[in-house]
């Protein structure tokens, strides 16, 4: 007979890693791998196509570097990451409720938080890996100066964007379980799609503002030629401060989500 030889109080780290490993193995299906490949190849193809069109115009090296840095940023850490996290992080709880498996997490102490963090980590890894691969594919075709610097900056921003947006969407998906995807999409459209591009104080509360400011400083972009972009970034606040704001924001949102999961009662089953 097999016995549990340790105390029956699993550590959160161990449980989270167990959920992450379980979710990773579950994602290794032909369909999911196909979706992953599509999400990596499509944005890379888009950027390569634009670069091939632009190369005919014979722009100078600085224009190519700054212009394509902004394009890479818009396509990968912004649009692709937001869509990826929208898809995977928003449904952390609602997908469990739909498959009627949440009840098995509820019955195990600490499992709710482990499920949240494990699935969140999986969403971040899954989405970041597609955008980082897309960056890796696209940059050699652009023919820009300092390609390694651009690659490292965009890949880091992809990961930071996934962490920040993932926490936001996980929170929205937990608070609005029934209309999780619609609400999160609405938020992404209004906050990150509209408010983030308004040159006013309101855009400082968006993830996009912080990411753009980090890009501009790390890449030392000459934004005189990109006036619209210049008005919605900040050079006054340091990169470390922007990163700290995003890290604290993501941690707070995840803590709030975990609290919400513990404090709320869930629909036990369909008959209610």
């Amino acid at each position, binding site marked *: *007979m*097999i*016995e*549990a*030889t*340790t*105390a*029956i*109080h*699993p550590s959160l780290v*161990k*449980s989270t890693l*167990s*959920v992450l490993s*379980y979710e990773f*193995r*579950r994602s290794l*299906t032909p369909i999911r791998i196909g979706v992953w490949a599509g999400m990596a190849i499509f944005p890379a193809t888009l950027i390569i196509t634009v670069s091939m069109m632009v190369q005919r115009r014979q722009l100078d090296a600085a224009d190519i570097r700054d212009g394509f840095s902004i394009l890479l940023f818009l396509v990968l850490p912004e649009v692709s990451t937001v869509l990826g996290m929208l898809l995977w992080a928003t449904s952390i709880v609602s997908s469990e409720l*739909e*498959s*009627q*498996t949440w*009840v*098995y*997490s*509820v*019955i*195990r*102490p*600490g*499992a709710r938080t*482990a499920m949240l963090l494990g699935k969140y980590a999986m969403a971040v890894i899954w989405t970041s890996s597609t955008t980082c691969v897309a960056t890796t594919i696209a940059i050699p075709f652009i023919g820009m100066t300092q390609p390694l610097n651009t690659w490292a900056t965009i890949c880091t921003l992809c990961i930071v964007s996934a962490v920040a947006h993932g926490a936001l969407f996980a929170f929205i998906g937990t608070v609005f379980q029934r209309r999780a995807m619609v609400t999160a999409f609405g938020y992404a459209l209004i906050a990150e799609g509209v408010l983030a591009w308004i040159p006013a104080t309101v855009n400082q509360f968006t993830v996009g503002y912080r990411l753009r400011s980090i890009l501009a400083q790390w890449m030392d972009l000459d934004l005189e030629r990109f006036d619209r972009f210049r008005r919605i970034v900040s050079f006054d606040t340091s990169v470390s401060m922007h990163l700290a704001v995003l890290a604290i924001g993501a941690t707070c949102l995840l803590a709030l989500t975990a609290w919400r999961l513990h404090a709320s*009662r*869930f629909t*036990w*089953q*369909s*008959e*209610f």
Partner: protein
Amino acid sequence: MTTHQHHDYPRETTSEALLALDHVTLLYDNVIGVNDIHIELPHGAYALIGPNGAGKSTLIGLLTGALIPTIGSVRLMGEDPHRSRGVLTRVGLCPASDLLIHNVSARRWIELQLKLSGWPTSNVRERSAEVLELVGLGGYLDRSIHTYSLGMRQRCKLAQAMAHRPQLLILDEPFNGLDPIGRHQMTELLIDWAEQGKSLLLASHVLHEVEQVTDSFLLIYGGRLLASGTSGELHRLLANLPQQVVIFSQDSNRLAGMLASMPWLKSLERDPLNQSLIVAVDRPIDFFQSITNWILQDGIVIDRLLGTDGDISSLFRLLVSRHRGELTFTDRGRSHSGKRSSAQG
């Protein structure tokens, strides 16, 4: 048999109890899930019986801390299951909802549940295979759960509930989807579990399914705990409650005359089509004694008697009527007001 009513007296709860609910009410907005349930049970095997929508699953949700009572408090093995989740490591739950999980084998899914229950990684693979073998899924360990039949998924749910060796097993409609052989195997498994001295709470809407597993029943209906006791007490309670009996007799005219003079007769209706009498009686025990005497002494021929005994819907209707004070409870001929707090049958 104890019947439970609106004004049940509070009882002291102890940490030794398997479960203790202190006047627990749960509201889903303006819908009542469970209503003023007050009970304390020692460790043992119990069947929670009630028709669909009676509040069984809500009660299980409360016991496992998934639901929070609007009023009152819940203690499971001395702990509040919502605040002190550590107690849940001693509980195995098999919910009624189907397992709609994709792209994962039963073995891997149970391995995760074991890890989340605190089992060391080195043991989970072996334990997962062992428990799946126990429920009869030994040959299908690595098959994806979504390819299982309903009965196999039911066994898989039971396996995860038992895997971490809990002290209390809570099963919600575990016989759903099982074929007769599966039902028999499940029954044997649960009998074995109870015989090991472990506790069991088995929710079902079919009385005869659970009678083989345990002799202790909790009857729930409309969110209220109507009665608790053993099978024998249940039958005695039924015998003491007013009920309707249909008699098929060749001597229906003579029998109607005899019945009409009885003090316990509430109503008598004759169905000329099939020569049957529909009789409503206050004291079923007296009725059945009289019928026996008439057969033996007066030669009355009875072809068939249809009563409420064994008919769970009728039983619940009777208990609800009594609960609302619409019926008078008779105990060996003595009559008590329906508004009394509790009565021993």
